[in-house]
């Protein structure tokens, strides 16, 4: 007992690895991957087995999609990991961001003509705004909705908040789903979705839907921006206030932390990340489709945060990469290989529900702090465990 407690204490006081090392590792890995996908993969001399292996197990689209998940998971991490508020409707922000891209970067609104530094000729009908500005717009719109939904609900108990956000996450996609004809106005093109978005202007060249390598760089930079924001905020006054609220709301408010305003800030920052992720995802798939924005996305993101380690930026990135890859590539590829190898016909992708459910349950039951734990959170999450040890004795008595 004593040694266990001592070991725990020692672990808890260990300093986390320097952020600079992590950041350098992240950028170096990104650079290697960029070189591989931009130059090695199209190269004629690449041995065919390696090419096939990469296309099967690590296709460029999967990497880019995973990066979008990273951006959103980092945003959710601010809400769940830093401030300790459970948000189950995060997909709403993703959807709003996506539709911002759909509205402002396509020919969809043919009845209006507006061009704001766009990459398409001014003869094209519809609203066309520069991708980088749309990122800002998407973030701002989501922040607005975050405040609107958060302001009245954040005073509720934390589990009620989970439900209100869940309701919000159901309503917003349904509005887009049914939005084909709202009093004669076509808001979202319904189930058909909005396709063909403007290319991304970079100054050098405009990136269309198939410029995976260049878009990879943009997504890496957006994710890096989110990492930077997360770390800066955490280190600052606001971040310390979030952690204080997460650990003990009552104590925090006694110390003068304005609860409502601080919680609202976390919610708004998280929403901005969701909006940016939504715009990025829309450009990644070159369109927005209402039926993609369903409840499972919110849960996927939550599982990523929980798997990686709530509150730890690098853990969340790892968790997002693992789960996004498993979902988009890992399971289908494994299934194909397994089925051809053993002549079976097992539908591996259908196991995602089981997988994500198990990740959530097993992580919470056995490793609540995630793969790369955040030292402070570990102590908070295991607060009740001392009482836990009384239980076996009690059950025996029965």
């Amino acid at each position, binding site marked *: 007992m004593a040694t266990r407690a001592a070991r725990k204490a020692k672990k808890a006081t260990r300093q986390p690895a320097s952020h600079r090392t992590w950041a350098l590792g992240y950028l170096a890995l990104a650079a290697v991957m960029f070189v591989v996908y931009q130059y090695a993969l199209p190269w004629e001399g690449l041995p065919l087995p390696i090419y096939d292996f990469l296309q099967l197990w690590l296709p460029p689209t999967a990497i880019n999609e995973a990066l979008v998940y990273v951006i959103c998971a980092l945003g959710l991490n601010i809400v769940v990991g830093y401030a300790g508020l459970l948000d189950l409707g995060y997909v709403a922000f993703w959807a709003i961001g996506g539709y911002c891209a759909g509205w402002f970067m396509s020919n969809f609104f043919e009845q209006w003509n507006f061009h704001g530094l766009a990459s398409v000729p001014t003869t094209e009908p519809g609203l066309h705004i520069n991708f980088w500005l749309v990122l800002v717009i998407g973030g701002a719109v989501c922040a607005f909705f975050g405040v609107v939904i958060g302001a009245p609900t954040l005073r509720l108990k934390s589990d009620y908040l989970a439900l209100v956000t869940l309701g919000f996450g159901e309503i917003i996609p349904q509005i887009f789903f049914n939005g084909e004809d709202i009093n004669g106005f076509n808001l979202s093109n319904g189930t058909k979705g909005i396709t063909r978005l403007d290319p991304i202007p970079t100054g050098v060249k405009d990136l269309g839907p198939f410029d995976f390598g260049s878009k990879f760089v943009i997504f890496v930079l957006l994710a890096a921006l989110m990492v930077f924001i997360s770390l800066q905020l955490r280190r600052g006054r606001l971040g310390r206030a979030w952690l204080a609220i997460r650990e003990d709301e*009552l104590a925090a408010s006694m110390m003068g932390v304005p609860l409502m305003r601080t919680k609202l800030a976390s919610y708004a920052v998280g929403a901005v990340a969701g909006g940016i992720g939504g715009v990025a995802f829309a450009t990644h798939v070159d369109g927005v489709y209402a039926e993609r924005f369903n409840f499972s996305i919110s849960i996927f993101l939550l599982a990523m945060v929980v798997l990686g380690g709530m509150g730890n930026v690098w853990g969340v990135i790892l968790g997002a990469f693992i789960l996004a890859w498993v979902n988009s590539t890992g399971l289908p590829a494994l299934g194909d290989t397994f089925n051809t190898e053993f002549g079976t016909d097992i539908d591996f992708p*259908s196991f995602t529900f089981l997988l*994500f459910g198990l990740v959530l349950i097993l992580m919470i039951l056995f490793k*609540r702090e995630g793969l790369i734990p955040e030292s402070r959170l570990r102590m908070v999450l295991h607060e*009740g465990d001392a009482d836990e040890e009384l239980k076996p004795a009690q059950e025996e008595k*029965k």
Partner: protein
Amino acid sequence: MSQAAVVEKAAVRQYKGTPGQIRRRRIELTAGVVLASLAMVWIVVNIINSPAQFAQVFILGFRNGLLYALIALGYTLVYGIIELINFAHGDLFMLGALFASYFITVWFGQENSNLAGWLTFLAALIAAMAFCGGLNILIERLAYRRLRRAPKIAPLITAVGVSFILQFIGIKWNGSTPRNWPKVLPQSEFTVLGVNIAWNTVILLLIAVPLLLLLSWVVTKTRQGKAMRATAQDQDAARLMGIDVNRTISFTFAIGGALAGAAGLLYQQTTGTTNYNLGFQLGLIAFTSAVLGGIGNLNGAVLGAVLIGIIQGLNDGLPIALGQKWSQTVVFTILILIMVFKPAGLLGKSTTEKV
């Protein structure tokens, strides 16, 4: 201002709450009155427009409301006792519906509405209740019990995980598309004052109402019910009084699960379809009902469920309404409005954080 006046003013303020609370209460009241009068106008317009159709969809909504009540009680019982929103409860209902379908159609091969069919239906009722009750006990034992003293976010996350696993079982069992089943309940209708009422509505009433009464009796009159109420009030004190808290909580989960199983069977037999994501949709509706009535309050759950069922029925079936495709949105808007303006629900006690 004299000293006495200040003291008196302070006393008055203490009596009515802080200015913020008073303002909040006023906003709540105004919003409530406005919403209620709008709803009344909508209802009256529809009654004048087509009285027969109104009665028809009203009865349909009432029937669905009773179904929701059976599910909502599971949420409210569990929330009342361990303050956990059991996200997996809706999916338990879905598995109950699947179990009942397999029991009646596949295992016992009943497809027609005859005596054998009805007897199988009754057997399926008991089997589905036992199945879901047992499953719920198992879920509590594996996923929630260890986390009883952990921070609140932990069991909520495992509940979401359990919900996903149950949906996975649903996909494997049912297939990923809706599936149609033969019904063993009579499909005919009878007419009262120009309104068609299906016989299965009557049967649903005959099963749901006694179940609700039975539950009410168990909770208020029996020893086990007393233990449940004591545990809900204060677990530690209950333990000191010699109540086996773990067993009481298991019992609560069993009752909630059994009601969900009954609801599953009734749903499957009245609509004739099952789908793996049924639990998610109906679970959320049922949860909204529980919140509307005041979560943790049994009567509230039934009241809320019947209200939600009727509102949804009217919205889906009336000519002057948003229509079925906005059904979910209507329900969730109600959920958000209650959460914002009256989180305690219609019959519940105040639940805002006291910070």
